[in-house]
C-alpha cells in the first residue's frame, strides 16, 4: 500500500515539476533576448571573456571605446594557459586610466583580472575535451557565484561557453540576471546568424 501511494504521488508530482521547469526555461528565454527600455542602474558589473590572439585584439578594440562609467567594475577573464591576453588588457586599462586622469576626471581602479581553466585547447581532440570541459564548468560556476556579473561580453567559444552556461543556469535558478553579448569574430565569414545584428567590423 505504502509503495503504491508513493508511486501515485510521484505520478502526480513529476509532470508538475517538469511543467514548472519548462515554464521557467521559456520565461527566461523570452526575457533573455529583450532589450531594456531604460536602465534603472548607473553601473553594471561587467565580465569580459578574452579568447586568444585575434579574439583578444577584437575584444580590446571594443573595450577601448566602451563607456567606462557604465560598465564598471570590469572583470577580465582569460584561459589559465593564456599568458598574453590579461597582460594586454592590463595595459589597455592603465592607458584608459591615464586618459581619464588627463581629462580631469577622477578614476578609480575598476578592473580585475582572473584566469580560468580552459575547456579545450586549439587542436585538442574532442574525446579528451569532455573531461577538461567538466573541470572548466565547475570553475566557471564558482566564478559566476563570486562575481555575479550583470553583463557578459565574449567573442571566443573556447573560454566563454562554460561561463555563459553557468550564467544562464543562474538565471534559470533565479540567482541573478545577466545580459550576455556575443560578438562574432571577424574570422567567421561564411556562417551568418539570422538573429545576430551585423553592424560592422571590429578590426
Amino acid at each position, binding site marked *: 500500500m505504502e509503495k503504491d501511494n508513493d508511486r501515485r504521488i510521484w505520478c502526480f508530482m513529476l509532470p508538475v515539476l517538469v511543467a514548472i521547469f519548462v515554464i521557467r526555461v521559456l520565461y527566461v528565454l523570452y526575457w533573455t533576448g529583450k532589450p*531594456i527600455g531604460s536602465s534603472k542602474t548607473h553601473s553594471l558589473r561587467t565580465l569580459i571573456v578574452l579568447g586568444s590572439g*585575434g579574439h583578444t585584439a577584437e575584444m580590446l578594440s571594443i573595450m577601448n571605446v566602451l563607456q567606462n562609467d557604465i560598465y564598471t567594475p570590469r572583470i577580465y577573464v582569460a584561459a589559465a594557459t593564456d599568458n598574453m591576453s590579461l597582460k594586454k588588457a592590463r595595459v589597455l586599462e592603465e592607458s584608459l586610466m591615464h586618459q581619464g586622469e588627463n581629462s580631469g576626471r577622477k578614476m578609480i581602479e575598476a578592473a580585475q583580472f582572473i584566469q580560468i581553466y580552459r575547456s579545450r585547447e586549439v587542436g585538442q581532440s574532442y574525446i579528451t575535451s569532455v573531461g577538461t570541459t567538466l573541470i572548466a564548468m565547475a570553475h566557471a560556476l564558482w566564478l559566476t557565484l563570486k562575481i555575479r556579473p550583470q553583463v557578459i561580453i565574449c567573442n571566443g567559444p573556447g573560454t566563454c561557453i562554460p561561463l555563459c552556461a553557468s550564467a544562464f543556469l543562474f538565471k534559470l535558478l533565479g540567482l541573478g540576471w545577466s545580459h550576455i553579448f556575443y560578438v562574432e569574430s571577424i574570422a567567421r565569414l561564411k556562417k551568418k546568424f539570422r538573429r545576430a545584428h551585423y553592424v560592422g567590423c571590429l578590426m
Partner: protein
Amino acid sequence: MDGAENGEHSRKMVFVTVGTTCFDALVKTVDSQQVREELSRKGYTDLLIQMGRGSYMPSKVSGEDEPLTVDYFTFSPSIADYLKSASLIISHAGSGSIFETLRLGKPLIVVVNEDLMDNHQSELAEELAERKHLFYARPQTLHQTIQDMSPESLIPYSPGNPMPVVRLMNKFLGFPTD
C-alpha cells in the same frame, strides 16, 4: 617603402610568425632549400622565424657572405618590433597577426595550417586575399607564391570601427547611445 633599398649593405628581413600555435609544417617549409633560394632571389637578406610551440628546429645560418641569414626564437611578448622592421611577413592564419601586419601596411603572405580541427581561420585569409590585402598560400605552395607575388599589387587595409557594436549594447541595456 621602408627605405631598405638605399645603401649597399641594406638588409631586407623576412619575418615568419606562427603566434602561440604549433605549426611545424610552416617552419619546415620556410627552412627548405627551395623557399630560402626563392627569398634570396627576391632580394631578401635575412630570415627570422618565430616558431611558437613547434618542435621542428630550423637550421641557423649566419655570416656576412651568406645570401640569406636564418635565425629563430620561440616566443616574444610583442612581435610589433619585428613586424615593423620586416620587409615581408609570412604568418599563420591567426587574425591577431594578420590585422597587426595589415595595419602596418606591410606585405603579407598568410599560410594556412591544414591540421587544425575547425579551420574557420582559412575563411578570413581567403577573403582578405580575394580583396587583395594579402597573399594566401598553403605550406606546399609557399615557394610558388613567393615566386609569383608582387607586393605592389596589394591594396592597403582600412581598419574597422567598434563604435556601432558599443552603441548597440548601450541601446539594449537602456543607456544613451552617444
